[in-house]
């Protein structure tokens, strides 16, 4: 029994060591497909943006999705261990009523949460 536990603990240790070098994030499929969509198309599939900001480069539409609480905290036998509150901000730059730029930003930056931005727009792809 102790050998099995030791082996498991060792596996976790080597796994963590193997993860020491952080890798760049691969692009998500939905973000790319938003380019070229009109504002009306976006609103019909993702709803109204939280904010519209006019800039010199064009209007920026802002969306946000917070990770569900069930994902952020798990319960154990006599209590819980809290995870991290996190979410994703999506900024869409509009030019001539078309999406010309997309930016997903996880908060906090140390937690990968761009999948929650993908959830905002998941009904925007065919």
């Amino acid at each position, binding site marked *: 029994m102790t050998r099995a536990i030791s082996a498991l603990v060792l596996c976790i240790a080597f796994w963590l060591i193997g993860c020491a070098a952080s890798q760049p994030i691969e692009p998500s499929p939905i973000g790319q497909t938003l380019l070229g969509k009109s504002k009306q198309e976006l609103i019909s599939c993702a709803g109204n943006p939280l904010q519209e900001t006019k800039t010199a480069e064009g209007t920026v539409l802002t969306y946000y999705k917070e990770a569900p609480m069930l994902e952020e905290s798990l319960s154990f036998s006599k209590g819980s261990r809290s995870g991290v509150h996190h979410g994703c901000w999506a900024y869409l730059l509009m030019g001539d009523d078309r999406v010309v730029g997309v930016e997903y930003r996880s908060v906090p930056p140390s937690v*990968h949460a761009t*999948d929650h931005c993908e959830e905002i727009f998941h009904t925007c792809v065919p």
Partner: protein
Amino acid sequence: MEQRQLTTLARAVGLLVLSIFGLLASPPLSLALEKYGRPLPSMEQPDDAAAREAEETLFGGYFLTAAFVSNPTFAARPDNTGLVGLRHMLHLETDLYKQYLTFYTDQNFFSDRTKGWIELSEWDGTFALTGLVDRLGWHIQYERDAPFDKSGILQAYSDALLTSRFQAIQDLSWWQRTFPNQNLTAYAGAAWLFYNSNYFARPDNTGRALFRYVAHADLDLYKNRVVLYGDMNFFTDREAGNKLNPTEMDWIIGLALRFREDMELSVYREQDLSLDKPGLVQKYVAVQLRYSFDVPKRFWKK
């Protein structure tokens, strides 16, 4: 159990702790940022920051209720009497300063199946501060486990826990290509019980806990709808010769189905056993329903 086996385990745990510190010393994280098409102007204006904060969580939590469908030995009170029948818990948390400082509390209740299942037999209260800086998670927690239906042993402790976090989708470049709808999140770390009033080091209520080693993994099988999770928790005994050697191991394995964003059904099995000598093994299988709630800051500002 042989001394040699225990030494192997202690070395393994030591390596785990060293690897955590190695991970912490690793190069800076790639930012969780994705861009397509034309670059966007900077959105870091004060008004934008305020708008973003308004959407983030003010406070959240969940209720859960669980039925211990199989429970040969998991005790219903801190003095190891009775057998748990039902479990109910309220979890509440709020960010005090961004993700760096969060307060949470758990109020957990057990009932005794040998006394009719409904009447509560134990009340466990936890109050904690927790936070995250890059990969490093921490908490300072006070837990008090007390009998509810009669007087008896009261177990309490305060501990400081340090963990390191790993996310496959962020840390392994091949993961997202291979498993776009899956993720693996894990953390491991160690805690020091700097205050201990009757918090035992074995399931048979012997010894007094000093250190705690934790390892946890969530395998998201499909878009956070189906999650397989495992958790290991080791305690050491401050009264033992070697205070670093684990004397108790608690492990849990479970499968959670999130059929709504705010509702989850899970089945899990826990076993708590003594590692350094034969003794009571506490174990059960439970089915649990969890319902979460989340209030964004904009509700408060309204």
